[in-house]
């Protein structure tokens, strides 16, 4: 996995040799869109059967449900007419889930009997968190396949400890001032340790750009606060409505930051000589998410599968690979099989990671 990005122009396409002016000049790349072909009606049936069987089996089936859901979403996502594949088996997931459940229960029981144990256990958890995160990423990457080549993740404990425990703690002490730096560090760790076969993903993320995203998010928040304060002063009888209107605006700022971070990260990423483009836009995305939420509430949850499909379709539709030459040159890495333990612990504590 050492020679991945030193020789892109040559192997990619023999015909095209425009890239002679230096490392900055890019070889001609053609855009290839990510496509998502799932449909709400079709996924609804899978989702409801999953939910029903999970209830009937008192939760055991949830491992199968998770695999089928992932297989549906991966399998309906394609790039250049080849589909992605999720290869984890339900038994792996179930095993991990049972262990995670046992750990969680043990924690609850111990803290019930010895409330003082909560603090050392939390510290223990903080120490284990980087391990859980890395295991989870290794598992989910390993189980993603495209053109019969597996993804992989190389991240180690020490960097994860820094990015997900130490630096966030420092950021809290700095009253959040350092937070954009931490976010940059985390994204950078996630991308730069990922690989497809033995070809590594690379991203040069600048802390400055993360700061500009977070600062403009803060401005957005500040200006809405001012508008609402003014509205409150001039129309006091509308006061009870203010929190109702404010909430979507908080949500807007939250989504704005995540959209900008996703775009920045993907646009700065490369895989060998191939690049990516992400064109998520805050307002359309917020529109989708808010109508999703509304639909889910009005249908008492039954619109959930439709909402998931809509979101996936929008996200895939905004993502393009800029392919240099063709996609035939990736080489499989030598690897060992993985277990699901880390991923499931990560899931119990509600951590979701993705590039």
């Amino acid at each position: 996995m050492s020679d991945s990005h030193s020789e892109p122009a040559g192997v990619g396409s023999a015909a095209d040799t425009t890239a002679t002016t230096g490392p900055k000049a890019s070889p001609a790349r053609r855009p290839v869109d990510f496509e998502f072909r799932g449909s709400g009606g079709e996924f609804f049936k899978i989702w409801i059967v999953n939910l029903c069987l999970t209830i009937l089996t008192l939760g055991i089936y949830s491992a199968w449900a998770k695999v089928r859901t992932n297989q549906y979403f991966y399998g309906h996502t394609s790039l250049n007419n080849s589909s992605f594949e999720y290869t984890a088996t339900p038994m792996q997931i179930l095993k991990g889930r049972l262990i995670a459940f046992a750990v969680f229960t043990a924690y609850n029981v111990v803290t019930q009997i010895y409330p003082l144990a909560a603090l050392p256990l939390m510290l223990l958890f903080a120490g284990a968190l980087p391990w859980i995160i890395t295991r989870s990423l290794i598992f989910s990457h390993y189980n993603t396949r495209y053109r019969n080549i597996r993804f992989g993740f190389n991240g180690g404990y020490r960097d994860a400890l820094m990015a997900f425990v130490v630096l966030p703690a420092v950021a809290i002490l700095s009253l959040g001032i350092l937070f954009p730096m931490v976010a940059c560090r985390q994204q950078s760790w996630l991308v730069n340790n990922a690989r497809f076969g033995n070809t590594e993903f690379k991203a040069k993320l600048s802390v400055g750009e993360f700061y500009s995203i977070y600062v403009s998010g803060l401005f957005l928040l500040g200006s809405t606060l001012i508008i609402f304060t003014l509205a409150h002063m001039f129309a006091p009888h509308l006061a009870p409505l203010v929190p109702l209107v404010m909430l979507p605006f908080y949500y807007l700022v939250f989504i704005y930051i995540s959209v900008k971070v996703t775009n920045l990260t993907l646009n700065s990423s490369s895989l060998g000589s191939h690049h990516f483009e992400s064109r998520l836009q805050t307002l359309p995305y917020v529109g989708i998410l808010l109508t999703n939420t509304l639909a889910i509430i009005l249908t008492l949850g039954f619109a959930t599968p439709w909402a998931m499909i809509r979101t996936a379709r929008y996200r895939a539709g905004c993502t393009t690979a800029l392919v240099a030459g063709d996609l035939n040159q990736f080489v499989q890495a030598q690897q060992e099989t993985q277990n699901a333990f880390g991923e499931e612990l990560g899931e119990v504590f509600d951590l979701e990671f993705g590039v």
Partner: protein
Amino acid sequence: MQLEAFLYNGQTSKRTRCVLEIGMDGRFQLPNGLSWKWQQLKVSQRIGHSARFLDLPDGSCLETSDNDLVDQLCTQFGQGDDKLHILESRTRYVLASIILTALAGWWFIASGIPVIANHVAHALPAGVTQELGDETLSFLDEILFHESQLDASQQTDIRSQFQALASQQHSDFRYKLHFRDGGGMANAFALPSGDIVITDQLIALAEHPDAVIGVLAHEIGHVEYRHIIRRILQDSVLPLVITAVTGDATVATTVLAGLPTLMVEAHYSREFESEADQFAIQQLQANGRNPAHLAALLSQLEAHIHPDGETEAEEKSSIGSWFSSHPGTEERIRILRESEASTR
């Protein structure tokens, strides 16, 4: 039979388009010259119309979107398992799943959560509920109540009857009666600690001493059944469950999950009120008192709150009034009156 597929060798991402000619015995040949049998393939399960992956023993893999042909070949060569896909594609199974899920969801919210809350509430150590009670009372004293204007003899009289009632309970709550001036509010309520508050205004409204005792018995019922703790637990569990079921815990879902909670709340509180009423009826009858007086007080309260047909919204604005937390007053009055008739 011809199957269109992509072939990937497993060493590189190279893609070879091929059309496989599959013989009657399942034998087929790849463009690389190797020959395999269908029975040797590991076929991925069918999910919606996603592509299928056929893994070969040598690490290479075929990808095809011809789901129907793959299914047909799997059946023909006795391979693969499409039970789940059948469940997920036939309308009747999907409909059955919808109905089962909806029933289970409804059952869990209507019965499951209350049962769990009940168990947890009974398992809570007395110290916790005591603290909850003390803090709430001093907070309410600060913002709502004034010292009672009731004369001492009347206080002692009610208190002794209350103590008699409380001493009949077998639980280890330490019941304590507090008289307060409710500033115009006719109200009575119980705290989870066993502290029961009654306002002068409610006592003044009662035409018969048994009515006051009836109210106090009702409040003791709330404590005995641990209604308040149960309600706190139920209210906090439901949004969690909704978030878990609807999947992603996005900010909006979490925030708006409170909505269904409000809808279910009325159902819960109605149940608790009738439970406390039943308790009061039992206590009153056991002590030779007449539940009809409590019924009378209830209708007076209704008249007090709706003197000239005020709207429901205005009634709700006096949050915490003894009446407003008691839905279905007419129904309750009817039951109290009937219980009187049945004792005769």
